[in-house]
Every structure is written in C-alpha cells, then in structure tokens.
C-alpha cells in the first residue's frame, strides 16, 4: 500500500492550500451577501462536481462511455426520498440513508455493467443511454398499481439533514453569523467532496486504477497482461454509480423534492460534458469542468439581459436562447482548441513510472 496521494501541491505548497481552504470556508458567506440563490447555485455546482468525479471513474479512468449516468443519481435521490418523507411515513436519519442509497446505486451500476461487458464505444453508449431512460420511466410509472414513486408528481416534503440539534432546513445564528440551510449544506457538501476526491486519488493510484488504464488503452493487451477485465469493468461501473447514488441522496435532501423530471438524458449529457471538457481522467480537470459548466449558464442568466439593455437599449435576443447559444459556443471552442479538455491528464502517469523505477 502506498500512502502518497497523486495530488499536486500537497507537499511544499502549504500556503496556497491554506489560502484555498480559507477561501472555500468564507465563500458561502460572501455569496450570501449577493443573495442566498448563489449559495444554492454553488451547492448544485458542488453536487455536479461529485457526479462528474463519479462518472470520471467510468469514463475517464476505465474509458467506458456512459450516457445514462444520471440514472444512479436518480436511484440515490429516490432512495433518500422514500426513506425520509411522509410518502411512506418513514423518516430515517440521513447518515443511514446516504450509504443505503450509495449501495443501491452500486448494485444498479453492476446490473447495468453486466450486460454491457462485451460492448464498447458507441454501442456501449446506446445501451447506457437506454438504461438511463428506463430508470427515469420506471420512476415516472411506478405509481400504479402500488404507489411507490408517486409517478410524475414526484415526492415532496423530504426531510432535510439533521445532525443532533442542527436542522439543515432552518437557519441558526452562531457567533453573529447566520448559518442558513444552504450554507450548512455547503459545508457538508465540501466534506463529501474532500472524501470523494481522496477516494478518487487513491483509486487512480491503486492497482485497480492501473488495471482501468490498461483496459482503457487496449482491452486485449490488458487481458493478455493478466487483468480480469470483466470484474475490473464491473467495478468501475459499480464505484462510479455509488458516487452517483451518494450525490442523489444529498440532492433529494437539499431540494426537498424529487421527480423524474430532474433525471432526464440532458443531465447525463451535461455531466459527461463536464468530464470531457475538464479533462477526462484528471481529477482536478474534472472538478474545473464541473464548476465551469455549472456556473457558466447561471452567470449568463444574470448577465445576458443587462448587457443587452446597456449596449442596444432593448432586448434583441431572448436571454434564455442567447444563454444556451453562448454556452454551446463555449463548448465547441474549448473542444476545438483544447481537444483533450481544459486540464488533461498527464500521459506520463507518475504512479507507474515510480513503480518501474523502484
């Protein structure tokens, strides 16, 4: 077991790390000054970072194109919703439900993985896309004859997190600071993010991580090198899915409401775009991609209208249309000029040369 993490700037670069930590701790209060909406937007951005890191295991590490990843997000969200809402009258605490959600999603990941083991590239993409839709349609229709998911109406009044006396659904005053619900969730999400980043880093460095790289590069050669490609691929699906399930549970609690509408194909594509744009396989690239693609539409939402008014005096193009136009253009330009993503994974993976030189 190696103990080092393949993260840049942990050793010798303490100051920037401390500054980053302080900035991240202070961030929600700064955002709250602009408006609580921005804290919520940030929370959703962090959720997307978590989802992207999960999908990165499947797409970035193992090279398996998955277009139905949002299904695992949905599974986690519904597990949380069913076990912490008046729908069934069950109100379990979040620290029990989140692992259950991750586990159920993990099983779902293996179930999806099993029939796709012999598929690759575009065929794999189509099957996973189908799986994503099946899950959503199930959620949409499992209200009859037994009402499990409440169909398209969704499940409302989902319990917020509760740690002892701290209720994530309410605001608390502490040391003169107003800890609103979204701010509490922000800190929880940050802890979850740290955990997921560390797990991702460890996975990437591990024997399993090397096997994923081998499968991604050449499956026949991987097999010939003694890698059990079947199990290692299933593991990628299952691990990626469990991160999706974990994020889904947090999403349900933050939102207080889930419905099948939140888990459409568009979301899967968006998460995939975050991974690809950021730089497949590189944890920090993926984080950058997710943050950028989460904030860009929101920033455009708030700037497109005032800019047009200032320049032309009246609205030429509907803000919603222009927003998506600029967003699409940004994606196209990035992929044109940085085809490997904004922050691609280094081809000279250190962990392996280190082993070779030992």
């Amino acid at each position, binding site marked *: 077991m190696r103990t080092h993490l393949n993260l840049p700037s942990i050793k010798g670069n303490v100051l920037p790390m401390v500054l980053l930590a302080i900035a991240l701790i202070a961030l929600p209060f700064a955002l709250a000054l602009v408006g609580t909406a921005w804290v919520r937007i940030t929370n959703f951005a962090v959720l997307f970072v978590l989802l992207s890191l999960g999908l990165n295991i499947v797409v970035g590490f193992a090279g398996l194109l998955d277009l139905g990843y949002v299904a695992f997000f949905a599974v986690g969200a519904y597990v949380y919703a069913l076990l912490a809402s008046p729908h069934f009258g069950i109100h379990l605490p979040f620290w029990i439900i989140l692992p259950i959600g991750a586990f159920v999603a993990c099983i779902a990941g293996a179930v999806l993985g099993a029939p796709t083991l012999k598929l690759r590239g575009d065929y794999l993409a189509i099957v996973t896309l189908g799986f994503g839709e099946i899950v959503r349609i199930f959620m949409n229709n499992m209200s009859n004859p037994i009402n499990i998911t409440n169909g398209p109406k969704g499940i409302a009044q989902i319990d917020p997190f509760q740690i002892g006396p701290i209720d994530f659904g309410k605001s608390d005053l502490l040391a003169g600071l107003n800890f609103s619900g979204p701010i509490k969730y922000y800190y929880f999400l940050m802890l979850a993010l740290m955990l997921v980043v560390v797990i991702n880093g460890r996975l990437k460095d591990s*024997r399993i991580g*090397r*096997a994923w*790289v*081998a499968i991604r*590069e*050449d499956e*026949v*050669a*991987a*097999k*010939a*090198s*003694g*890698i*059990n*490609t*079947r199990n290692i691929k299933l593991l990628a699906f299952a691990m990626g899915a469990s991160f999706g399930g974990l994020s889904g549970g947090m999403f349900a609690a933050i939102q207080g409401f889930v419905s099948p509408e939140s888990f459409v194909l568009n979301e899967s594509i968006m998460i995939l775009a975050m991974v690809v744009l950021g730089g497949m396989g590189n944890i920090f690239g993926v984080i950058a991609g997710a943050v950028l693609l989460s904030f860009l539409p929101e920033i455009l939402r708030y700037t497109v209208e005032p800019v047009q008014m200032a320049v032309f005096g009246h609205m030429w193009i509907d803000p919603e249309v222009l927003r998506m136009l600029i967003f699409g253009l940004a994606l196209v330009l990035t992929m044109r000029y940085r085809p490997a993503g904004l922050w691609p994974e280094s*081809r*000279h*993976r250190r962990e*392996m*040369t280190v*082993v*070779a*030189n*030992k």
Partner: protein
Amino acid sequence: MNRPTNSSSPLLDALNLEIHYGGIAAVKGVSFSVMQGEMVCLLGANGAGKTSTLKALARMINSTGEIRYAGEKINQLPSHVLINKGLALVPEGRGIFARLTIAENLTMGAYHRNDKAEIAADVERIFTMLPRLKEREKQVAGTLSGGEQQMLAIGRALMGRPKLLLLDEPSMGLAPIMVAKVFEVIQSVAAQGVTIFLVEQNALLALKVCSRGYVMESGKITIADTAPNLLADARVRAAYLGEC
C-alpha cells in the same frame, strides 16, 4: 485423455479444436502439440484460422475440443489466469498500450505479480535485451516505430515470465530490416528456454527459425512436418514461398 506430465509430454496440446463465429466455422477441428523448449510455427494464408486458433489457446475466444497446457485442461479457464501459469500471448497488431510510456507498458505486463524488486530487475533485464527501448524508456509507446512496438509487446509478455509464448504474426507490417531484428529477439527469447508457438504468414522466415511447422488452410491443418521438410515441400514452396 489422461497423460502424465513429464519432460517428454507436450507443454501445449490441442485436440480437435473447433471455433465458430456465429454459424461460420473458422477452425474445423485442428490438433497439434508443442514440446517443452520447442519453437513451432503455424503457417497459412489470410483467413486460414491461424489467429483464431491462437486466440483460443490464450482463451480470448471460446472453442470446442481440448486444450492442454502443462498437462492441465485449460478450455474453461478465464484468459487472465493463464499468465500466472506461464502462458503469454503477444496479440496481433502489436497490442501495446499506446498512450503509456515504455516503462509503464513493461510494468503492466507484470500486473499479476507482487514482487516489486523482481519486477524492477526484470524490466532491466528486458532493457538489456532490447537496448533501443531503454533509450526511449520515458517515451509514449504509440510514438515508437512498428518494429519497436513489436519488440515492446514481446518485452511486455516476457514480464509475465512465461514458459510458453504465443506470438501472433510478429512480422506483420514491418520493414524487412525490422522483421529480421524482431526475429533475432524471438530467437534470443527461445534461447533462454521459453517455448514458442508462432503464427506467421512469412513462411520462409518462420521455417528458418522453427524446428517444426503446421500449415493451415481454410480452418484445417493440411501439412505437419519438420521445418527442413516443409522448406523442401513442393506444396509449401508453391503456396507460401512464392515459387511456381
């Protein structure tokens, strides 16, 4: 079929091997054997079923009939356990990890091993054998020339410390000078005591280095003989050595 394992019994024994792709029979009941320390080739034209046979031996595809390796029936084993038993495949078309460095490619070949010190020693051993690779240790494998990639693929297979090396058309798409170099490497591997089963279209070259050979035509073995006899065989000369 319960033959005892001793030095005189074959290291690899294929009996009545059949391979089907859907309804099409690619290999129609072939039998052959390779003795310990021997260097044997399987010759034939495109589409004769040579690569399918080799893939079946490495358990990459399913086959009926019986495959015995070191006395053990391996028909039902998954491919990834074979390297542990000392059976390594160098896939067709080189099959290297193109975006990994040469050193990374070699260490990947020792994936199933845990002895770090020994692995490092083996990497050095292979670099001594293939000095061209040593110079490019940190280079990405995809940027190597075809012949160097083929040597790397052989090197990676050797990292598994095989007893039997299955080689699928190592001369494919290489310049004649590189073909000669690759074959020099293969011969030096054989000299180290590794048994070799070689699939080749380049019959002349293969028969010059091997002791025995099998000729495969449309899924069947039609001729089996020693290399000198095959080189002298009129049918072989006509079909594979370009003599009329």
